[in-house]
């Protein structure tokens, strides 16, 4: 296998460089890893800092004498624009908060309005139902009035019938009397009596026909009453199942 390997100049160079770099890095690491280096570095930093402080101080002093702005003045002006930017940011955040507040408020309002609309719709539906029920109730009322009128008529008929019954009883008595008189033969009276009797019989026939018609009427009223009663049960307002 080793015979197949070819020499690559750059691969060798890379390998050597990496090796050398590592070695040198280790050497530098060890050479600087001591207190003396740290102290010397600190002294160097201090000296350089002192020098820089003096340069800056003199720079400011000369610039003040020459009445020209320094970088510090420019920086101060820039700071003001940064402050303005911060204020804008804070205002923007406040606007956000307001927007969020309004958004949540309008959302609450929307749900509230939705609830109101739902309630109104429900009320509308119920009022329509109530209206229909009211119309039914009115119809029932007129029917009831008709029934009451019918009952009054029936009562009048009853009174009439009672009177007729009394009259019939009277007629029966007259009949009996007539029979008695016929049996005792009283001719003058009989002729008059017979005429009266005929008249009364004719009246009786009329009364009978009236009674028959009344009975017919009563039967019809009863039938009407029976028909109306189930409807009455259905339309009673207190018995409504919908709410």
């Amino acid at each position: 296998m080793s015979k197949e390997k070819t020499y690559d100049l750059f691969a060798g160079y890379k390998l050597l460089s990496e090796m050398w770099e590592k070695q040198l890095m280790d050497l530098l690491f060890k050479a600087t890893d001591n207190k003396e280096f740290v102290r010397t570095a600190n002294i160097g930093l201090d000296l350089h800092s002192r020098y820089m402080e003096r340069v800056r101080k003199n720079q400011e002093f000369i610039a003040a004498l020459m009445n020209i702005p320094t970088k510090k003045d420019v920086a101060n002006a820039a700071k003001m624009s940064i402050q303005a930017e911060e204020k804008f940011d804070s205002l923007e955040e406040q606007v956000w908060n307001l927007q969020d507040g309004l958004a949540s408020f309008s959302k609450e309002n929307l749900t509230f309005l939705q609830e109101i609309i739902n309630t109104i719709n429900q009320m509308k539906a119920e009022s329509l139902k109530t209206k229909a029920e009211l119309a039914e109730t009115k119809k029932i009322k007129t029917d009831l009035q008709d029934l009451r009128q019918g009952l009054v008529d029936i009562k009048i008929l009853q009174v009439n019938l009672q009177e007729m019954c009394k009259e019939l009883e009277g007629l029966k008595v007259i009949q009996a009397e007539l029979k008695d008189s016929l049996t005792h033969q009283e001719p003058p009276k009989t002729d008059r009596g017979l005429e009266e009797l005929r008249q009364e019989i004719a009246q009786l026939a009329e009364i009978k026909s009236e009674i028959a018609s009344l009975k017919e009427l009563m039967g019809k009223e009863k039938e009407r009453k029976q028909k109306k009663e189930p409807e009455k049960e259905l339309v009673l307002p207190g018995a409504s199942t919908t709410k």
Partner: protein
Amino acid sequence: MSARVSTKSFLPLLNIEKETKRWNQLYKVMTEPKPDIIPTPRKCVWKKNKTTLWYHPAKEKKHAVPVFLVYSLLNKVYILDVGEGSSVVGGLTERGYDVYLLDWGTPGLEDADLTLENYIIDYLENALKRAIRHSGAKEMSLMGYCLGGTMAAILASITSLPIKNLVLAAVPIDFSIGTVPQKWLDGIQNGELSFDRFANAYQTLPSEFLYLMFKLITPLNAATMANLYTRAHDEIYVEKWRRMDKWTKDAQAFTGAAFKQFFNDFYKENKLLKGELVMDGRKVDLKNIKCPLFVFSCSRDTLIAEKQSLPIMDLVSSEDKTYEVYEGGHVSLVLTGVFAEIMDPWLSTRSHDLQEIRS
């Protein structure tokens, strides 16, 4: 005969075409200006001072929970968006995440008083709030890299904002240990080495100083150059290398107040680990972190040691916590875009799949 064959195979066969390409590319690297970094398609959501909150929409949205990325104050923004094919942001948008990236910007002299507290409360927390509002999502995954991870962990432990997942990559939590020589750390801890006067003198530390500081930690870059010479014939590699080189040399300025706080509160007193850190009157207790946590370190990290990240696993209250080690370096983790690859399997299961929601 066999001796002739073996000699022939041993000697390098000169591939003229390959070599021409190699040296042309090298010449290009040496002479041409640094490449322009083209960011992943983005939209500005919020600006404050030098800070910008960028929104990178997903190419095809697959996850309901967006990702908020925080990088280190010591870096430039394009560390997480270095260009197509290597971008962490691009990798995440391709995988169906909406991404928010907080660009710290470059501080000027007027920002000298900005402390880490200002950065975390006034900038990071506000940006997260705005990202949540902009996305319309109920929760957001927070991802922090390097010092950005420390800041993300601090924010997650004090904020009331809804953080769904917390991802921390190469994050320093324990500052009593490090990759620098121990005597340096001892010097900072016992006050023998102080940057206070230096920070006061400069007010805002120039980017050159930060570049020197990183150079002091990793002074040699022979391996990086060797990598370039070795693979200079590969155009794609050279393009990536140039972008990485640009980022390495493009250091960031740092505000004096934040620098002092960084060294005193973190390196000197290790307040985060001890639970003594206070931000805006709120005590930073990592126990307050209850969301799912994913931490990963780099095995060849020369800036943040694995031991610096590990303590967070015991300090948080999260029941769902995962720790992984990535075989690579601190910078290659993000500049190669592998970060998105590592993060996706863990994050996708915790980001409410849109298809599942629809079904």
